[in-house]
């Protein structure tokens, strides 16, 4: 490497250096307030993250409480429907029995001589009217079926509430990301203050799946089943 001697420098080099230094200092004078502002802003933002994180936790807790309340109500609804269904079934049995007896009675009445029948005009009239309404037990059977359908719908609603667990895990994933940003910001500001850095990632065990999704498509389960089949056939 070739040595450079002061006498080799151009005459105005010293002046140029001084001007350069002055420009650098001027730039630093301009940049420092901006850096201070950034630091303050970062500190401010960082201080808000725990609150945001806590709010996400509150959201999760609120949705869990609400979901449990819905499940309680659905349970109660299911139990009441079951009672009504049981009562209807016992009524249906009674009605069926009475309809049978009534049909026998009418048949017996019809076998009586005409003059005897005419001695009971009210009975004859009532028998004629009620003969067309012997499908009460069928109507009750239909009602039982509707109730059973409603119970199934209520069960489907309960199963759909799995979405609460899935969104909780997604929210927990976001909360984890926010916490990681807070730690990064803490380290950035820490460098300014000469503070020691902390780990950006929380090293504790993650108890959430940030990729959780409410997907009713069976593709993932089908793929899982084919893997399971390989293990169960060749353990």
């Amino acid at each position, binding site marked *: 490497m070739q040595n450079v001697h002061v006498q080799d420098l151009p005459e105005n080099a010293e002046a140029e250096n001084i001007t350069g230094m002055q420009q650098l200092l001027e730039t630093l004078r301009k940049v420092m307030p901006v850096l201070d502002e950034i630091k303050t802003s970062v500190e401010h933002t960082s201080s808000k993250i725990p609150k945001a994180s806590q709010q996400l936790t509150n959201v999760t807790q609120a949705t*869990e409480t609400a*979901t*449990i309340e819905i*499940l309680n109500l659905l*349970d109660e609804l299911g139990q009441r429907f079951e009672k009504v269904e049981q009562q209807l079934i016992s009524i249906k049995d009674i009605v069926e029995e009475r309809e049978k007896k009534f049909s026998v009675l009418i048949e017996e009445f019809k076998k009586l001589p005409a003059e005897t029948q005419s001695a009971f005009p009210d009975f004859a009239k009532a028998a004629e009217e009620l003969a067309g309404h012997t499908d009460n037990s069928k109507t009750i059977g239909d009602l039982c079926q509707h109730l059973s359908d409603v119970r199934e719908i209520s*069960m489907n609603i*309960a*199963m*759909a*509430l*799995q*979405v*609460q*667990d*899935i969104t*909780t*895990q997604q929210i927990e994933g976001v909360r984890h990301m926010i916490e990681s940003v807070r730690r990064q910001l803490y380290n950035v500001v820490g460098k300014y203050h000469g503070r020691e850095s902390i780990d950006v990632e929380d090293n504790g*065990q*993650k*108890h*959430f*799946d940030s*990729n*959780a*999704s*409410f*997907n*009713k498509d069976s593709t*993932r*389960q089908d*793929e*899982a089943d084919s*893997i*399971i089949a390989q*293990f*169960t056939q060749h353990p």
Partner: protein
Amino acid sequence: MSVKFLVVDDSQTMRRIVINALKVIGFDTVVEAGDGKEALQKLQEENPNFVITDWNMPEMNGLDLVKAIRSTDAYGMLPVLMVTTRGNKTDVIEAMQAKANNYIIKPFTPQALKEKIDQILKAA
């Protein structure tokens, strides 16, 4: 056959949903635990004969619970069904390598739960 289930999930909602689904398909005897550690304790106290566990849980996760169960003489053969949101192939492989008996990805239906339980009980 009378089956006593241990349902393990850190989400109270999910425990309720799994227990409801079990009732719908005809299983009424259920005990519950909020994580793997509590589940191991319940195994000794309640002596269930079927475990349904989530994967992601604090304290001890479902995968570690399966490994812990398989490592014991007393519960080594206990049927374990994992019910989890984790649907990657690698997750399923990891669970099966840990010797879980079967695997359901959430959200599930009572029918899917019944099919898996039947498969496990039939093979047992």
